[in-house]
């Protein structure tokens, strides 16, 4: 029998029981819509995290000073006090593939200018820091190598800090006081937005690390070292070599713990995306369960259909239908049912993602604050063609899988019994 004719018969059979067909499809519709919507939102959140990680810079390796335990009290990161500027210098000099380093000092302090003041994070960095993080200036420029060498009282201001202290005025060339030390502002940084931890990366005042040591912290201990590797594929080797070098420099014997931590950008990205990945997998699993339940619904209704149409099967067999003609008729009917459900589900899933986005935006506007909602509202929703194709194929496969048993049952009927069936 021709496939098109079989398909036509299947469609007609479904049209005859419209209500029943729609209810049967509902399981698949909900399943597929859930898959599309959830994976879409999940992917959106993941893309957002990835975008945030990209604000770190390119091929960045972060070396944190580790903790030290003294008398049972664990000191927290940086407490070891073993990370020195010399470590940064030797990393740049001795580890091949390292292009730039910046020793980092971090503290918090009150900034004041005129009658305005603001508490912000003070970072001590080298001028290379801005290149490493691909951080551009909206006004002015970075402090120089010379400023670092001479520990000049200069600094670069983040966008948030600039707005708090200077409002709409141009901060470049102005003086801010930090712990009563006057600093001349050489540049204003472009906005980088929020970090993964949710901190405002623009709420910052960056000075040469030498100046930070001398004027602000009064110590020579670094909080960490930012390192840039030449390319993506040498990251793990560079990380290992940095570890090895630092262990050697800090005289750590074999079997003892590191007093520092080396994290590549990939590691950070992986950690950050792990959660959203788990979420996506979980949501996908729940959606798959509903697809399977939908499939069982199809199987159920196909079994009913086979029983109802026993006489029809008998007639078809009497006039010459082979078992496989009957099999394909019912199988195509099941697959049509499930893939039609799949298509409707895809449309519903795509539109519901946008509705979800709209709702979250409305909630946000009404000041109902929730991080998850905000992520959905402003994160990109990614409906990848892959997931659309996968869900369609999967829904069709559900039809084949769950339609096979009823179709097989129909095909195995004895024509005499089928014709006599009341």
């Amino acid at each position, binding site marked *: 029998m021709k496939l098109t004719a079989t398909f036509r018969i299947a469609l007609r059979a479904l049209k005859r029981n419209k209500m029943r067909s729609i209810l049967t499809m509902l399981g698949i519709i909900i399943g597929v819509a859930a898959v599309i919507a959830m994976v879409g939102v999940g992917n959106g959140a993941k893309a957002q995290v990835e975008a945030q990680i990209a604000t770190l810079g390119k091929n960045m390796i972060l070396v944190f000073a580790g903790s030290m335990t003294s008398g049972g009290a664990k000191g927290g990161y940086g407490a070891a006090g073993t990370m020195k500027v010399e470590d940064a210098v030797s990393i740049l000099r001795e580890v091949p593939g390292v292009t730039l380093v910046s020793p980092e000092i971090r503290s918090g302090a009150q900034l004041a200018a005129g009658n305005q003041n603001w508490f912000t994070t003070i970072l001590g960095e080298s001028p290379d820091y801005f290149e490493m993080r691909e951080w551009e200036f909206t006004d002015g420029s970075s402090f120089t190598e010379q400023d670092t060498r001479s520990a000049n009282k200069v600094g670069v201001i983040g966008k948030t800090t600039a707005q708090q202290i200077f409002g709409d005025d141009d901060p470049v060339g102005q003086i801010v006081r930090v712990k009563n030390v006057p600093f001349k502002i050489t540049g204003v940084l472009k906005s980088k937005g929020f970090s993964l931890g949710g901190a405002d990366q623009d709420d910052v005042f960056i000075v040469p690390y030498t100046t930070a040591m001398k004027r602000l912290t009064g110590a020579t201990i670094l909080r960490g070292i930012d390192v840039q590797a030449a390319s993506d594929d040498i990251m793990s080797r560079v990380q290992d070599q940095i570890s090895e070098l630092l262990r050697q420099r800090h005289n750590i014997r074999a079997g003892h713990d590191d007093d520092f931590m080396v994290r590549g950008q990939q590691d950070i990205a992986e950690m950050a995306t792990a959660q959203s990945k788990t979420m996506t997998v979980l949501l996908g699993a729940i959606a798959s369960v509903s697809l399977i339940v939908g499939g069982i619904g199809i199987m159920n209704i196909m079994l009913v259909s086979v029983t109802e149409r026993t006489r029809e099967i008998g007639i078809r067999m009497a006039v010459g239908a*082979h078992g496989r003609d009957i099999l394909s008729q019912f199988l195509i009917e099941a697959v049509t049912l499930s893939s039609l459900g799949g298509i409707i589900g895809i449309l519903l899933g795509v539109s519901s993602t946008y509705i979800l986005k709209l709702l979250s935006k409305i909630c946000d506007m009404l000041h109902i604050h929730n991080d998850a909602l905000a992520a959905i509202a402003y994160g990109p929703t990614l409906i990848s063609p892959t997931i659309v194709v996968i869900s369609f194929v999967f829904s069709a496969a559900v039809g084949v899988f769950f339609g096979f048993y009823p179709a097989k049952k129909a095909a195995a009927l004895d024509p005499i019994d089928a014709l006599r069936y009341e």
Partner: protein
Amino acid sequence: MQPVISLESIWKIYQSGDVEVTAVRDVSLTVMPGEFIAIMGASGSGKSTMMNTLGCLDRPTRGRYLLDGVDVSGLDRDKLADLRNQKIGFIFQGFNLLSRTSALENVELPMMYGGHRLPAKELRARAMKALELVGLAKRFDHTPNRLSGGQQQRVAIARALVNRPAMLLADEPTGNLDSRTSIEIMDAFQTLNEQGITIAMVTHEPDIARYTKRNVVMRDGVIVSDIQVKDRFNAKEEMRRLDGELQAAKLVK
């Protein structure tokens, strides 16, 4: 001439639990082309089993069945289906049309199977021609529920004819019809038979059997009589007689 039906010592034994039931025992029968035969008998006489065997719906336990020269005995399910498709036109007591499907599409059904692969236009033309033969061309788009019992049975006859089979096989074709419509159907059969179509009909009504040319009576699984019908009914005359009687009844009133 080669017989359409040739049964050689057919046995059919059913296994019903531990008991063996012999439905047909050692039956031989030959039907030549152009014959119009009625197989008669009370229920349990084995005529249904004969019907299923002749219709290639069931295989005999023992013996040989040649349908239009083809030995049916050794064929599998699919081969039997093809044989039914090509050599036999079925007409059932309950019409057995597909509901909610137009008369035309019901007639097209046998051409959908058996690897005919005709273009849709040709299917339609052949189905229309078959409907014309039974005088229902005008109602080609009616679904069975909009047709009378007689019309439904005529659609079924058109469906049986559409693949130009070697014989028509009718199973109590008038069982669900009133006497007037029964005569109509017999008229259709006689007309087709005059055109040379072989018809085998199973019935338990002696009146209906008298429209055929040959009566085979079965009892307890064996043929007890096989005679040519002498005073054969002519459907057209019977119809006229029936109309006359009706007219007379009206006058008496």
